[in-house]
């Protein structure tokens, strides 16, 4: 328990950057999306221009994120880049943005992944304008959730993602896209309704009429009420995570979405669920959270194990990745449930690592599926002989996903297990069993895809192209960087997690 418990002391004076950087990270994509509506899209030249414009936009957002990160490292207060403007004083909602060590790394992850998503969107030939407008709106939604410190604002950005995600899957996805998109939307809207209900109950029952997360933290609620609100928030976030009974929408969507959207879905959208649990359930309703933690741990372990077993039995490559991500999110939930600093640190780190590895896996899987013309693992085999670079990246990605030491996932999983074990002595070993099963599923899949005899019809398979290779190498470098030097993020994450957990509150 002493591993990371000490609050790091900062000596350097924090660099002061204007708070508008955070607003810019949220709104630049939306403004670019509106501007994009006026671009012509008739010729290939026009379409190329649209692509470059969107790439430049996500690049600008990434640049802003990196600059923010640079100014953020030595942060001392609870929230950095805090910006409060009057918006709806009459109902107690304000435009309140700010980041801490939990949201800032995830925001940075979002900025990176959207650049990779745009880079990977070369297959969108038809109606690129529509596609990129929706993608940019999605980025505003994701970044906005990470940046919001006001429940109403948080909900608006949360809900902003539903329809673009639906249209992106339903319009540009695989053969069974419509059913998958509907299922995802229905589950997502139900989750959003619960979220709105939780927020409204909190708003109306609190003695101060405000939606402000920071203000509401200090408000005392009756224990039973707080527990109910905590449950509602948990279910709303768990639907996104996804936990066991709600996962089919996510798995189907992941299998049918176009690769870049699958990347956003597994890399970011599900992470929002984990982020919500850490920010709201663990951070704001800690006392109530301790009361429901027993049930949550059961849900987490069942999710980890079920997803691992489903991954073992899965033949569809994209669905396999979905189950692996789901299993990891179960671990994140276990870490959040233990509410031990070490485990929560691990949960944040695992979300970052899993975001990167899932993105890499989705891109590589899409590349292989496109070439082999099947998504069935059983129908693949021996691809390593034809795709040297692809196979190398695939092995690295698989190692990252199973938590190989030296790669990002390892430290996250280790911290969660170390942190959760003292308080959950049965659940944690079961979760470790889940990690082992996932490793088995992953290694078995690698063996079946890459090695063995090459089926006849795969004779003319190509290796990865330059852009695909660059994407893969970019992601793998981030994974290695995070695995070798977790300290670049760990100090800030730890500082904020300790702040989050030591504030108490109910």
């Amino acid at each position, binding site marked *: 328990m002493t591993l990371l418990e000490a609050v790091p002391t900062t000596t350097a004076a924090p660099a002061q950057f204007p708070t508008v950087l955070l607003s810019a990270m949220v709104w630049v994509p939306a403004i670019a999306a509106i501007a994009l*509506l006026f671009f012509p899209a008739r010729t290939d030249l026009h379409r190329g221009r649209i692509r470059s414009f969107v790439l430049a936009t996500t690049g600008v957002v990434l640049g802003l994120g990196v600059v923010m990160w640079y100014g953020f490292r030595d942060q001392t207060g609870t929230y950095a880049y805090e910006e409060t403007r*009057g*918006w*709806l*004083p*009459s*109902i107690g909602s304000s435009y309140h943005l700010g980041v801490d060590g939990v949201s800032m790394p995830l925001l940075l992850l979002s900025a990176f992944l959207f650049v990779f998503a745009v880079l990977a969107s070369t297959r969108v030939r038809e*109606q690129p*304008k*529509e596609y990129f407008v929706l993608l940019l709106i999605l980025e505003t939604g994701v970044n906005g959730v990470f940046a919001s410190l006001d429940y109403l604002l948080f*909900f*608006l950005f949360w*809900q*902003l993602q*539903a*329809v673009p995600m*639906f*249209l992106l899957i*339903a*319009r540009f996805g695989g053969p069974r896209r*419509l059913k998958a*998109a*509907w299922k995802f*939307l*229905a589950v997502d*809207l*139900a989750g*959003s*309704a619960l979220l*709105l*209900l939780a927020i*409204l109950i909190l708003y*109306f029952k609190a003695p101060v009429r405000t939606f402000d997360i920071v203000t509401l933290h200090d408000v005392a609620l009756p224990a039973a009420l707080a527990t109910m609100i905590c449950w509602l928030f948990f279910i709303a976030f768990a639907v996104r995570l996804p936990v066991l009974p709600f996962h089919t929408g996510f798995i189907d969507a992941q299998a049918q979405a176009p690769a870049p959207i699958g990347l956003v879905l597994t890399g970011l959208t599900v992470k929002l669920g984990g982020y919500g649990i850490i920010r709201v359930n663990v951070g704001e309703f800690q006392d109530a959270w301790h009361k429901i933690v027993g049930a949550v741990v059961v849900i987490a372990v069942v999710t980890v194990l079920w997803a691992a077993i489903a991954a073992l039995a899965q033949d569809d490559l994209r669905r396999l990745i979905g189950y692996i991500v789901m299993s990891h999110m179960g671990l994140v939930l276990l870490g959040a449930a233990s509410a031990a600093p070490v485990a929560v640190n691990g949960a944040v780190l695992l979300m970052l690592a899993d975001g990167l590895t899932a993105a890499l896996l989705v891109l590589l899987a899409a590349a292989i599926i496109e070439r082999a013309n099947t998504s069935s693992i059983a129908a693949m085999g021996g691809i390593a002989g034809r795709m040297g670079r692809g196979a190398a990246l695939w092995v690295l990605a698989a190692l990252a996903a199973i938590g190989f030491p030296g790669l990002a996932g390892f430290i996250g999983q280790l911290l969660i297990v170390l942190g959760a074990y003292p308080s959950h002595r049965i659940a944690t070993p079961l979760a470790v069993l889940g990690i082992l099963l996932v490793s088995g599923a992953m290694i078995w899949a690698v063996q079946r895809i890459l090695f063995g005899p090459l089926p006849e019809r795969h004779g003319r398979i190509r290796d990865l192209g330059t852009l695909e290779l660059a994407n893969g190498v970019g992601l793998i470098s981030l994974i290695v960087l995070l695995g070798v030097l977790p300290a670049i993020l760990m100090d800030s994450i730890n500082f904020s997690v300790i702040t989050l957990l030591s504030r108490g509150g109910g």
Partner: protein
Amino acid sequence: MRTFGNLLAFSPELWLVAGAALVFALARFTSGATTTAAALITIILAFLALATQFKQTLTILDGAFLLDGFAIVVDVIILGCAALVLLAGAADILPGETPSPALPGFLLLATLGAMLAASAAEMIALFLALELLAINLYVMAGLARRGPAASIAGFGYLTVGAASSGLLLYGLALLFGLTGQTRLAAAGQALNAVAPNQAAVMLTLSLLLGGFALRMGLLPARWWTRGFEVGVPIRVVMLIESVGVVAAFAVFGRLAATTFSSSRIAYPAVIAGVAAVAMTAGNLLALTQTSVRRLLAYSTISQAGFALAALTNPKGTGISALLIFLVALTLTSLGAFAAVIAYARSIHSDAISDLAGMSRWSPGLAIALAVALLSLAGLPPLAGFFGKLLVLQAAVNGGYAWLAVVGVVNMLFAGLGAVRIIRTMFVDPPVFEVTPARLDRGIRASVGLAAAGIVFMGLLLGPLYAAATYGRNALLH
């Protein structure tokens, strides 16, 4: 002299009268475009005249009309709606149809009636103003010149309207009988002081609610749910759904806040019950429709239910929530209807399934319609969401938390219904080749204005809410 001394306070209304007279004169020898332009200029002049009266409270004709902050806020909404209807309605022309150039004149008179109704503080003036509005709507519905089916539909509207006027008149007569007052505020005080038979007061309220049901859009009125090329033209439906609904809710809001709020009956419970039934039934009806026009028609029932929900708390924030909701609702429904007019020029059909692939043949229009439908359902961060949020807040503050739960569930289902249409527009391949028709500037401007308003209303909510609160405070003193 004292009686007419304040008549200048009617200057916005007088501009409308003069404009209508001019339009009727012009209609004898010019085209519809000229009269439409004249009517638009009249509305702008009326708005400027109204702007000189901001922040005043004027009693006109011995208290028959009370131009207070509430009336001014409602008048601004009504004039905005009238302008949008005028802009979009001019494009609602079927092939071979030559609409009467006098139509904008009737629109101005209907607007006049609505504005008078918003400031009416006395029963007789109130009824006359509402009838002025209604009669001009009957005329516009009957002037369709679209063959017998349209005339039958117009006549149907006249019949239902006359019946609802009858109910309204019974309600007002009973209120007068119970209190001996024709002024709304004095009647409220008398209801409190005299404390008449509570059952009679409840009957009065029920009759008034029944009388307003059609005007508020609470009734599943059959007359416009016929096929697309028959029935009442959309330009009239738009006017009924914006100006008419705003006027009806303004009058009922004034009644609830000044007359019934001091009575002892449990009137919020009645309103809450009607609201819950209306929002659920309207939604269920809308979800099963196969045409956008019918879907919009049935969804107005649900919207009226939401607007009524605000009146469960007339003493608190209910009135300001109602005003914001009316702004959001009119923007949304006018945007949706304008989009329907615009795409009907291209595909001459009303079935949702014929909208397949709309994003390919008319991407801008598809986005505008999608935004309007999502806002109608109440999905954030569009105008409809903020309107509904404030209404539900008012309902919860008034002690009707269950109504808010009904509302949230309805928003969820309406959202799924809206996405169903959006899927057709954006995902499905086109069922037939469509060559998009050229649209004139008026309809393009109205669709664009409404869509921009729906998307950006959230940003302007601060000043809007300040204006609505000003109106509410004026009504409740």
